[in-house]
């Protein structure tokens, strides 16, 4: 089945990623697939890191922890957005091609009225990615 899973992670809000992380790990273990955790950082200092390199290191540590916890092969892929407020979707779409993932597993909130005019990240990715996308709710 799928060989390479991509899981977008927001390191500042890892607590909200629960289901997607577990789902991705279970699927990867089941198929013996590799998981790449993709994080979108900024060039300016942020909550998590002072610079892009520090951000990449934190993401690596996160991926390593996931690999150990779930006994899967895991990698990290740090990307940079000039303007993360608006560019996250595009950066993630680009990352899918870049790492060659065939399945994206990502968390999303329950769709509400607002999603009709303003799609969630999950909605946009599912609508535009060439890879398969599994949007995990709740």
């Amino acid at each position, binding site marked *: 089945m799928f060989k390479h899973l991509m899981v977008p992670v927001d390191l500042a809000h890892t607590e909200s990623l629960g289901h997607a992380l577990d789902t991705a790990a279970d699927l990867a273990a089941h198929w013996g697939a590799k998981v790449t955790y993709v994080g979108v950082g900024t060039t300016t200092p942020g909550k998590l890191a002072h*610079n892009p390199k520090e951000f990449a290191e934190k993401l690596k540590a996160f991926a390593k922890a996931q690999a150990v916890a779930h006994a899967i092969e895991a990698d990290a892929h*740090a990307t*940079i957005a*000039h*303007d993360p407020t*608006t*560019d996250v979707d595009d950066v993630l779409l680009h990352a899918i091609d870049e790492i060659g993932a065939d399945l994206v597993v990502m968390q999303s909130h329950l769709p509400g009225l607002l999603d009709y005019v303003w799609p969630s990240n999950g909605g946009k990715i599912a609508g535009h990615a060439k890879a398969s996308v599994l949007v995990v709710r709740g």
Partner: protein
Amino acid sequence: MSDTDNQGIPEPEGRADIIETDYEIGQDNLETKLGPFRIDIHNPVFAISGIAVILFVAIALIWPEGARDTFLSMRDFVKSQFDWFFLMSANLFVIFALLLIVSPWGSVRLGGTEATPDYSYIAWFSMLFAAGMGIGLMFFGVLEPVYYFGTPWGDQPLGGELGIVDGVVASEAAVAEARQRAMAATIFHWGLHPWAIYAIVALALALFSYNKGLPLTIRSAFYPILGERVWGAWGNAIDTIAAFATLFGLATSLGIGATQVASGLTEVFGSGEAADGTRNFLGFLWGNADSSSDSSLLLVLIIAFITAIALVSVLRGLDGGVKVLSEINMGFAALLLVFVFLVGPSLDIIGDFFKGLMGYARDIVPLSNPVGREDTGFLHGWTTFYWAWWISWSPFVGMFIARVSRGRTVREFLIAVLLVPSLVCVFWMATFGGTAISQVVEGATESGVFQTVIANYSPELSLFAMLGELPLASITSMLAVVLVVVFFVTSSDSGSLVIDTITAGGKVDAPVIQRVFWCIFEGAVAAVLLLGAAGTAGLDSLQAMVISTGLFFTVVLLVMCFSILKGLISEKRSH
């Protein structure tokens, strides 16, 4: 782990001298949900800035005359009492920036030794103009040189002679002299000084953010002086005043700029006769002798239109919005510039460019000297006004420049932010101002520029009057209107981005709804002020208040010079 893990990162960052602080960016932020929207704002900077803005708008609406008298006299007090302080500080900024270019610290790279630029030269350069100066160039390009050349109100630079007196063109020698002095004084206001002001703020913020790891807000530049206290009340005050000045600066400019757009539209598409008081654009009265009949509704519609485009740009983000619009506008501006240069008096323009520069070199010392001046009308009405204006805008423009300048060396940064834009401004002024002065010299009282600048002072029409005497006037006037609108859009968009970053404690990944909020808020403030009883007087009075904040930010900039020096020294030492 393989080497490919770092794909997408600009490059390894190399060495930089990070400041060790326990402060975590966003630790004072309030993260919550408001209805369907997630918000992430700095507490209390966001709330205080927002409430202060509403308060001042209320004051301007409830006591229009009181507010106007207070703010205008405050501005005039600041301009006349602190003229020496503005002039000396601005001189210091220019000298400081020029010295940094040739100093060994010029090789320090913003973002660490191995950082690479985020944007190409063209994109970077376009954005420098789009944020803070484009609108001014459109408004003052014709007005200012002609004003110095020929207006009879006695506020000529250095008390020089006029090139045209009572509608009669002076002797050839007098014209040449008045012309050179007019260009020199204009270049003085649009050349090294304003760009040095912007460069200082941008450099301080970029250095303390990209190299030292502090949040991208104004307060970070105070770290060398205030230390950890910068995260408390002091820092809150600095950031709040910056957000406040930026918002009001943008809102009032938006309101006043709308009048230029309205005039341009009426000029190109209007109907009716000004003499009968029926001049209008699509039925909205505009441009008649009795300016009280001008339609506020038209202005509000223009503001709504500009805000709507700005919103689209905001939603598309930095790369998809401001950058694209800036590049497009740079193309349009270049087109207009080349057109005026070619069909206008090209030789005169080349002459104005070089003679203007020579005059600038000759007059820069007397123009920038605050002591023993007799031309106080010019000194207070123009120079001090400009310095206070540039400085009150500098948190906004500087922060935006910082945002797009990562990966450049200090030397490269200063050459591109100080020298190149200054030269472009000189050429712009020589082209627009030179063409206009030539029209005045040739046509005297018959020329449209004479009518709009000297006979009946209507500054917002001066550009269109100049274009009106060149071929293809309706096309170029339309292009000029588009340029003004797009420059407003890029200012409004980049301004929303800056205010959002400041009021989110330096976070650049706050939810986009916050930027949408600031963008609409700016437009709403401008519209409410225009619809109020005072009309544009409400805008004028609040703009006067913003300019007064220039005094406060001059002190901020002086501190920034010290911080830059300290920061660069430690950066070099760490290598």
